[in-house]
């Protein structure tokens, strides 16, 4: 699979990642090389093979539905780029 500039633009949008125009061709070439490596997988017939999502055959652990963490909002918000009255600030979304 060889990716074009427009493919990279589309993927970068899905990933919410700004890629400079001047870098698009180089990124497309790099990603295409990586995909060539990845496509070595196609030599194996995997019909009927159960996909393995996780190394240990474990099910998700449940815990009692009890409060286990304390409220640390103020502490956590000290490292935020912008907050006001306990809220995280972002550019206006709704006009």
């Amino acid at each position, binding site marked *: 699979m060889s*990716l074009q500039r427009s*493919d*990279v633009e589309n*993927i*970068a949008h*899905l*990933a*919410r*990642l*700004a*890629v*400079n125009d001047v870098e698009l061709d180089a*990124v497309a070439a*790099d*990603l295409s*090389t*990586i*995909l*060539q*490596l*990845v*496509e*070595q*997988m*196609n*030599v*194996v017939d*995997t019909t009927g*093979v*159960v*996909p*393995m*999502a*996780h*190394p*240990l055959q*474990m099910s*998700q*652990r449940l*815990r009692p539905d009890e409060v286990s963490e304390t409220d*640390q909002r103020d*502490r*956590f918000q*000290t*490292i*935020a*780029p*912008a907050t006001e009255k306990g809220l*995280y600030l*972002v*550019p*206006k*979304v709704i006009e």
Partner: protein
Amino acid sequence: MYSKSISELGAGLRAGEYSSIELTRLFLDRIGRYDGELNCFITLASAQAMAAAENADRLIRHGDAGPLAGIPIAHKDIFCTDGLRTSCGSKMLDSFIAPYDATVVSRLNAAGAVMLGKTNMDEFAMGSSNETSYYGAVRNPWDLNLVPGGSSGGSAAAVAARLCVAATGTDTGGSIRQPAALCGITGLKPTYGRVSRYGMIAFASSLDQGGVLTRSAADAAVMLQAMAGFDPRDSTSARESVPDYSAHLDAALAGLKIGLPKEYFDQGLDPEVARSIELAVTEYRQLGAEVMEISLPNSGLAVATYYVVAPAECSSNLSRFDGVRFGYRCDQPRDLEDLYKRSRGEGFGAEVKRRILIGTYALSAGYYDAYYLKAQQIRQLISEDFKKAFEKVDVIMGPTSPSTAFALGEKAGDPVTMYLSDIYTIAANLAGLPGISIPVRPVAGRPVGLQIIGNYFQEAQLLNIAHRFQQESDWHLALPTGY
């Protein structure tokens, strides 16, 4: 003094021959003297270290100190440390002061270990040479023109140059074992789930595992003892009991069955590295082990499979870095989308972006089955290869890395060539198995690592096998010239 083992240092501390404060000052002085050229540390914690050392000295005087009390160590900068910058080697987290400790950090603190600082690493642990760090490359103490390996390159170089006694690391595709091999030290990646991932910044959650970089297997046993065990804060933490890792170090190896995968000795392996591995295997034969050839038929697909699974998980994990709650935010965002895109575009480096893009593509509509599902199926086949092998043998041995340390810049421009540096380490991560790398005969002055892969939760056996070799050889004692 700075080359003594953890148990020797512990004995000296308890006997009152020196204090932890003196020991800590010694290593901080060494860092001051040598780290300018090596670049192992991103952040030093000198004041906290001296306070921790004072506290450890008090515990030791009261006679209730464990084996790590007062021992100076370093943490890979992927582990969150309360009140201290945790950068993960990225501009994205350059000003991130973690508001809590990773479980690995809190357990080692509780054991009385003294943290000297946070070590350099490839950005978000994505790299095999430490060249993707926002804070610059780490240099290999054996030759400053060579890479130390990655992604735990700062930890590996710091332990090799005796800038700390031991260090933590993480291994997603070889990031403990490969730098350990390239720097001539011991590196243990435990079974997936053995060491808590809580507070360890996530790269690929089904592969990531914390572990240790030390100068010997005996030191690794002491470190792992403090770190391993169930943690309710990690949803994939294993409930397996933790054995006494130091108790079995000296067990005899007579009758041990060692498998050598023929696929690990193919034309991609440097012939001199192969010779070093053969010599090490001969040593094991003399210790009474039985050696046989085995096959891991799908191991050739491990790198391809990994470069779908790891980027897919990374693209999902790294979506949390959005410029809103913590981390880098771009200047003057026009709107919310611009805030996300430019914060991420400016905060992440080239390799991290490549992996996010590959992962996003592999998970996108229309491509999921061809890439992600296919990779998960091959992951199953690779895991089954190991299961079959462990029906015949106790452990698997081979090279950790296909070559010795390469030159800085040599592979930096070619992602796929760089990815192939992890060709022998990745399969253990896909299967979730434990692996250790120990130094064997160097080639032209450059360290070589022997990789030993064990069955699930057999860390004690790996440490025993590594330790017995280190009793018969002194490669692990070699100190790089000038340090």
